[in-house]
């Protein structure tokens, strides 16, 4: 087997792993979109915010220290504790639920019945707000996140592939863990929505708000719940990404890649989000590998968007979306 092909296989595998991370963020989008018709641009920033909060709680940072110091001339920084990861994750999850409740109460309750595009722009506003808020609360320096997930090259895969191809594949343990966690997450979300009372209510709301309201479903509760779920998914994505490349602003930009993923997969389809994520992950890595060197590299910046654009021109409803029939 030629070297190029072997390298391409490694690139392919790494692309799959990257795709899983995209799919994780996309999953949060799908949840909210299905239940409330809101295209939540802020999902990426939510992941960033969750990661920031997690680091902050673990390291015992004083929230708003920067602001308080500036206002009162104090020198606050840390509470001086180090919490175990599990406690911090639970704490962060609680913060995300609180955030969901506030978003629902202060933003979207006042926008019920507005056009989808207005809601979309509101989420852009929310993204800006959260970004500023997160930075003020926890500071904007790049932070290291370590919740004890395994990292580094997977020796077993390295060995096996070396024996077959004479070339050891570099697959990060973290990516493997991410894949497993993503699979568990998707599986439990599907179980939740199919077999629990809340899940059924959620699907009812997704189908028709007013009908759901008229059979006695508490819309507000469902929406807060969905946003919390999305917040939790964001937390998981934030942990993976934060561990991989540090908690920093660019994380929310990487999360933007979930948008083309959604366009490929269709906004309402959970399997679509997964498959779309994998296609984008593999596609951009292979493209960079094959074409990148010819055009100066860094094609990953735009490949996903252009791919989604071209794809949509031929299939406007996405891979798994329902065919759009226009009516007068």
């Amino acid at each position, binding site marked *: 087997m030629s070297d190029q092909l072997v390298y391409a296989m490694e690139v392919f595998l790494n692309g799959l792993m990257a795709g899983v991370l995209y799919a994780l963020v996309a999953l949060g989008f799908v949840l909210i979109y299905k239940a409330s018709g809101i*295209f939540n641009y802020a999902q990426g920033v939510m992941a960033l915010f969750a990661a920031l909060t997690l680091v902050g709680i673990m390291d015992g940072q004083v929230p708003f220290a*920067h*602001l308080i110091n*500036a*206002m009162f001339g104090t020198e606050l920084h840390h509470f001086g504790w180090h919490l175990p990861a599990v406690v911090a994750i639970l704490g962060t999850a609680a913060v995300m639920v609180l955030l969901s409740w506030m978003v629902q109460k202060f*933003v979207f309750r*006042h*926008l019920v019945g*507005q056009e*989808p*595009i*207005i809601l*979309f*722009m*509101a989420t*852009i*506003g*929310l*993204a*800006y*707000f*959260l*970004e*500023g*808020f997160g*930075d*003020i609360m926890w500071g*904007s320096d790049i932070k290291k996140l370590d919740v004890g997930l395994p990292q580094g090259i997977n020796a077993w895969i390295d060995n096996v592939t070396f024996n077959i191809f004479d070339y050891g594949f570099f697959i990060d343990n973290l990516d493997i863990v991410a894949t497993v966690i993503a699979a568990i997450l998707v599986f439990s979300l599907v179980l939740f929505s199919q077999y629990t009372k809340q899940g059924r209510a959620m699907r009812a709301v997704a189908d028709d708000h007013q009908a759901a309201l008229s059979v006695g479903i508490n819309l507000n509760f469902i929406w807060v719940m969905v946003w919390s779920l999305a917040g939790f998914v964001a937390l998981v994505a934030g942990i993976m990404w934060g561990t991989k490349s540090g908690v920093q602003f660019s994380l929310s*930009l990487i999360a*933007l890649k979930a*948008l*083309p993923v*959604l*366009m490929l997969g269709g906004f309402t389809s959970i399997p679509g989000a997964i498959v779309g994520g994998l296609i984008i992950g593999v596609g951009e890595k292979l493209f960079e590998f094959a074409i990148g060197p010819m*055009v*100066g*590299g*860094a*094609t990953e*910046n*735009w490949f996903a*968007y*252009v791919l*989604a*654009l071209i794809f*949509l*021109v031929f299939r*406007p409803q996405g891979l798994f979306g329902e065919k759009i029939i*226009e*009516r*007068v």
Partner: protein
Amino acid sequence: MFYREAGDFKTTYKDDNQTFPIKFDRYRYYFVLFVAFALIPFMLNDYWVNAIFMPFLIYSIAAIGLNILVGYCGQVSLGTGGFMAVGAYACYKFMTGIDIWLGGVQYALPPINIFFSVILAGLVTAIVGALFGLPSLRIKGFYLAVATLAAQFFLVWLFNKWEWAYNFSASGQINAPERGIFGVNVTGPNVDAWAKYLFCLVILTICAVVARNLTRGSVGRKWMAIRDMDIAAEIIGVNPLKAKLSAFAVSSFFIGISGALFFSVYLGAVEVGEAFGINKSFLVLFMVIIGGLGSIFGSFAGAAFLVLLPVLLKNVLVGGLGWPTDLAAHLEFLIVGALIIAFLIAEPHGLAQLWRVAKEKLRLWPFPH
């Protein structure tokens, strides 16, 4: 009292069609023009021009452009930064003289006058914009918004990698050489504050008048018909492809001009990722939302608001209270985000609508019944 339309009768449809049908509005408009052209240039200093007037004038052009696309034609675009970059680089090529290698022979155009460079840059951007607008026939709503991100990221990447676009300069930056009009410099290191200001003001005025003319006639009605109900528009005879592409082209024309001015007159030197990144797209979109979708006046109001807000915050927080600058910057994000949400909740039609309501009140004042 003085703000009345009673007795101000129109006897021709031409009169009824004018931009400011109410006399008082008309006089105020002439007054604003007079102040802007005849008074302000004498009172300027470098700080005011660079911190407030240049960004205001240039972003106003961009906001008018984006408003045509989003506010009048209903097609949301997140590619504004990318299109501004096209304008900037096109302007750079025109003002330094375009060179083309064909079969080993170099054909070089002489440098073009800065005014025409800017206009030509607008035209180039219009073509690029129409190209990226093509998918809008099939893709709608926020699918389209995300699709325009392709333009944003691809164009920024392109101008990073395409050495011809920045004349093979080692830094990858483009620098505006010294260029003038009627013997007065408007770009380069030695420019008087008033010259920059007047140059941008003239172009802005032309752009605003053209935008107003386009939006009040048949072209504008086609755009608005597409915005309000695209299927019905097609059935009454609007060609959706033509309407959407013309909106993309006209919008990009203005955005290209603003990009050209942003680079050549305002900044002087530009690195594409920094000056025309995704945040620029959002900034201009926010101007349009806060100012008012579907209003030329709103574009001005939104631009003024978002140019002044950071200056104000900086002066108060950093200058007044002595806070660190990064904190003020984060606070700006937070406030802008909250304002966007507040406007969408309270007044989806933005500052322009507040202004309209105020006028309505003023018309009846002091006897509201």
